[in-house]
């Protein structure tokens, strides 16, 4: 009898420990699934800026305030700014690159799987697959608009390493730019049920004097019926763009 009771206790304890172990394993991967969106003005200008027609004023999202451009690159940025109405790649509805896609004023949906995380963006139906299987970036260089993303968990933070960019995308409407040597590291940390802390480090030895960092919250869209719709930029602009593109 005593043996039987002991056996039951042992098996209960084992089940309890197993349950703990399982929930512990689950706890290692926070659930980032949902539809998210930024609420800021970084899409227009990631640095501090006053308001102007159609552009809301905003405080910068760059750590330390200014982007550490090399002297030639600062001049290029100023030229980009002057010509932004047509020179911005988004004026012809190209894919925005990373991280600009994150802070476009459109929602995006995160879906998590064992070996990958999908991010689907409403803006021009951009998709990213973040491979979580420990695989390396493919050999390159490859000119991708959205780069090649490989992710891993560092504690509760999703860390995504992105390379293989082309030099065609900007960081914002204000002409902030990079070369194809761009290396982006994104960090997604769930801060509460409805917020993600998004931090992104930018490295590009061709353009900047040192790596620099942007940070902003991502907000969960709360509407019970929220879903991604479509923003088919080039389809809407096609008639105009066919005149001179």
């Amino acid at each position, binding site marked *: 009898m005593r043996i039987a009771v002991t056996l039951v206790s042992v098996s209960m304890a084992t089940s309890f420990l197993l349950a703990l172990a399982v929930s512990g394993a689950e706890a290692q991967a926070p659930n980032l*699934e949902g539809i998210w969106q930024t609420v800021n003005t970084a899409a227009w200008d990631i640095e501090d800026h006053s308001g102007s027609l159609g552009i809301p004023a905003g405080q910068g999202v760059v750590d330390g305030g200014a982007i550490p451009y090399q002297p030639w690159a600062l001049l290029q940025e100023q030229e980009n700014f002057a010509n932004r109405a047509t020179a911005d790649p988004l004026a012809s*509805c*190209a*894919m925005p690159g990373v991280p600009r896609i994150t802070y476009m004023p459109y929602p995006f*949906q995160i*879906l*998590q*799987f064992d070996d990958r995380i*999908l991010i*689907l963006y409403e803006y*021009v*139906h*951009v*998709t990213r*697959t973040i*491979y979580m299987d420990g*695989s390396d970036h*493919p050999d390159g260089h*490859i000119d*991708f*608009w*959205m780069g090649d993303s490989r992710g891993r968990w560092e504690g509760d933070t999703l860390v995504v390493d992105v390379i293989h960019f082309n030099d*065609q995308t900007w960081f914002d409407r204000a002409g902030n730019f990079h070369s194809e040597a761009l290396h982006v590291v994104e960090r997604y940390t769930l801060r509460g049920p409805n917020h993600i802390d998004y931090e992104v480090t930018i490295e590009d030895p061709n353009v900047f004097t040192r790596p620099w960092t942007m940070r902003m919250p991502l907000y969960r869209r709360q509407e019970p*019926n929220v*879903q*991604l*719709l*479509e923003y*088919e930029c*080039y*389809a809407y602009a*096609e*008639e105009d763009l*066919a*005149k*001179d*593109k």
Partner: protein
Amino acid sequence: MQKKIWRKINRFAAISVIALLGAMPVGLFAQQAWEPPRTVDGHPDLQGYWDGGPVNASHSIEDGCCDVIHARMQSRTADRLGLLEPLIIDPPDGRIPYQEWAEVKRTQLLYDMETPTELGHIDPEDRCLLLGAPRSNYRGDLEIRQTKDYIVILYEWAHAYRVIPMDGRSHVAETISMYNGDSRGRWEGDTLVVEAKNFNDQVWLDSHGSFYSDKLRVVERWELIDSDAIRYEATIEDPNVFTRPWTLAFTMGRIGGDDYEFFEEACWEGVTNKHRLAAGRLAVAAGERQLHTHEEESQ
């Protein structure tokens, strides 16, 4: 392609065996019915990479494709120009049941596409538009991922995607129209049934001007018939354009190994239609109109 043909031969063999076994006592074999792999939610696991519908279908769901030169570019012989088997299974003649006015418009589009003077004359695929359902499913390779609440289909072509809610929510309002439409899914037994509506009228079902209106409704049925094949059926209804609902069907096969990945397929970023429109306008001004045909095939 060879793989696909083999699959079809295998399927034929399987059907023959099943037909033979049909004459024997059912109870003997009932327990051997094929059981699909399932997700943790108990539904068939459709996840992975698939090759979509047959080659040529996106050019014409009625005839297939193409001219001899294109076939040669794609390493296909002249006898591989059309569809291996009809895509449209209902009506039995394999043709789209257009209303009279729609047949006229479609024929006009077969002229216009040769000498486009406006964007609406150019195949939506050449304009990188989202191709909606069902066309996206026979335009190229696709990837299916399932969660408890969603089925996601990623298309390699033009990085298109569909998110299909499975939670029973209602469609978006009638006034919202989209290139890819608005999809809602449910399981009927082991078949994934997706109803799509809220389309706009900008997309064709193939490169042959097979147009529809914003009243289009599509019901898709996705069924895993063996571990490497999905039977796909789409019933298409549009009271503005067709005389009756009609159905196309095909089987798609699994592709890729463990480390298979889609690459980014930017489309619009490399496209210009300016020159095609300019050439089309010049041709029309010179009185040069011609019907899009595949007559080269018989040469």
